[in-house]
């Protein structure tokens, strides 16, 4: 409601053309996406990990995804990266429905190169027996079919882009620092020239001083290469810095989505409010009581946050709120005004 565009623009330099492109068809359009997992030992029971999620990411846009562990953000990420098959819904990528391509086929699909992922802990996600050069070259061989010489030339280019000294390329992960490994992870994702980068807690394993460098690198790469980001993180202060819009998930559903500055400054959903107030280093906190309700066959007619919500009313137990426009954003709460 009080989003001052000047403040937003000052805090974040938008990549050239991003605003104009946002009006055109988005790069990625997710419609009514579902993922239900069978529950071991309980016949017929289903865990609703991702429940009716719709979301779009524009060209050159950076979208944040936040929520507690167990809220389904990792499942959503795996669906979008096409590592997992959805139970229903559409994932429209530049006109194609990716949801129809099965995950194992997508691994060799030409579109695979378009969507790349940077994983959480570079120590765990890099093969310890691959040198930095091999790790970055591998997707080039697999997805682009480059010869060894072509791949080597491309590796040099991306290494420079991510600020990894060429002298470090022959090294193995254990010979690299945390920040250098993070750069290898980013270079590996960038090598095949993706259009969307999914960043899953890319700085969670790094010290703050190193994290700052990597965040600045990511901001710069996006500006230079015109990439779109889906940025998943626990650290809301980091999300705020690196995204244009943010989506807040709770128990498989998106409960609030809107411009990052606005959502963090004046959250509308009671869950977002609690989440934002829990960021260390600021004023009083909203304390949530009660446990997160079970994602296994959740009641269809109740708000998922009911029972934990500080302002829950009878209506919340009878009628599940839908995601609806409120000002510049969308909120799934009966009392968002």
């Amino acid at each position: 409601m009080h989003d001052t565009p000047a403040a937003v623009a000052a805090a974040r330099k938008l990549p050239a053309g991003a605003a104009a492109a946002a009006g055109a068809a988005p790069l990625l359009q997710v419609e009514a996406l579902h993922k239900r997992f069978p529950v071991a030992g309980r016949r017929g029971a289903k865990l609703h990990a991702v429940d009716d999620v719709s979301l779009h990411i524009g060209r050159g846009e950076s979208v944040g995804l936040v929520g507690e562990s167990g809220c389904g953000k990792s499942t959503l990420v795996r669906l979008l990266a096409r590592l997992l098959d959805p139970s229903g819904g559409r994932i429209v990528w530049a006109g194609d429905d990716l949801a129809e391509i099965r995950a194992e086929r997508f691994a060799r699909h030409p579109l695979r190169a378009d969507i790349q992922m940077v994983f959480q802990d570079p120590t765990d996600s890099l093969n310890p027996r691959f040198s930095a050069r091999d790790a970055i070259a591998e997707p080039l061989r697999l997805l682009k079919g480059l010869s060894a010489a072509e791949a080597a030339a491309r590796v040099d280019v991306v290494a420079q882009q991510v600020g990894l000294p060429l002298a470090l390329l022959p090294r193995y992960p254990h010979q690299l620092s945390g920040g250098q490994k993070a750069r290898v992870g980013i270079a590996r994702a960038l090598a095949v020239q993706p259009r969307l980068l999914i960043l899953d807690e890319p700085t969670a394993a790094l010290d703050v001083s190193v994290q700052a460098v990597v965040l600045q690198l990511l901001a710069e790469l996006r500006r230079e290469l015109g990439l779109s980001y889906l940025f998943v993180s626990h650290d809301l202060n980091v999300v705020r810095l690196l995204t244009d819009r943010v989506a807040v998930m709770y128990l498989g559903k998106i409960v609030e989505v809107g411009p990052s500055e606005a959502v963090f400054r004046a959250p509308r959903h009671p869950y977002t409010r609690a989440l934002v107030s829990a960021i260390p280093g600021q004023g009083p906190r909203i304390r949530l009581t009660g446990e997160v309700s079970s994602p296994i066959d959740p009641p269809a007619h109740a708000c998922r946050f009911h029972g934990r919500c500080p302002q829950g009313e009878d209506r919340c137990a009878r009628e599940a709120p839908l995601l609806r426009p409120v000002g510049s954003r969308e909120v799934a709460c009966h009392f968002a005004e």
Partner: protein
Amino acid sequence: MTQPPLLAVKDFGLEFRTRGGVVRALEGIDLQLNKGEIVGLVGESGSGKSVLSYALLGISDRAARVTGGTAKFGGIDLLAASEAELADLRGREISMIFQSPRTALNPIRRVGDQLQDVLRRHAAAPGADLSRSLKQRAVQALRDVAIADPERRLAAYPFEMSGGMCQRVMIALALACRPQLLIADEPTTGLDVTTQAAVMDLITGLARERHMATLFITHDLALAADHCDRIVVMHAGHAVESAPTRTLFATPRHPYTARLMSSTPGERSSIASLEPVPGNLPDLKRDDLPACRFAERCERVSERCRREPPRLAADTAHAVACWHPLHRAAAIEEPADA
């Protein structure tokens, strides 16, 4: 003020003998904790904050060797105490909450059994409540950390509980014997922000209620600021600055502290305003370590920094180990707000 501190560490040093050489992990550490005081020990990985806490409890790695200094807890010399004396102390007078509750808890024993182990080990301790059974006391310990339905939870295994719940059990274990000193080593790593807030409130709430001194080890300055009375900043095995929390944030004096603050994303930061700390931690195996271990990363460095070790004056409220500290700005008095 006149009371002697509960914990007094003076000029403490520790090194590790490794195949690759001697790692000078801690050097010239001075640290004091008063009764009931909550002190944050803040630093990046490799700063030595965990090594220090393990050394105090006598649970250091076997490659560790104390090179000098003293560590007194009440009247006890922690560095001279026998293993039996330390074992009596641990869990009763000094307790520790470890980083990842899932690995620190025994995965194949019920929560109630693990709690009763601690209570039984220290059953003869003075102050132990002998009027109630171990089970009743275990239930009470769980109730103290706000676990709902504690009777039923006694029978649970760690894998049946969420990460936040496991951490509550760890806290219950650590506090079951009402220690005077609690060392909490990154107690909220891996927890969600909302759970993190709840766990920190629980720890500091119990600390205040029981007048228990707490050493809170973290890499997160903002989190320390929210919960600590005083903060000690560590860098590469040195304590570089110590100050009451608000003073530290208003006027950080060590260049490293200032950089750490400006590299942490906060409410008002932008991507351009982040200032990473230049360079890397020095290799602590080096023979030619500069006297100030921040010297090679510091903009204010002079020749003196490389030769003469700056010391943290233990007796001042705001102490800094630096030859060229940042200015004492006008805002040295307590800020009016907050």
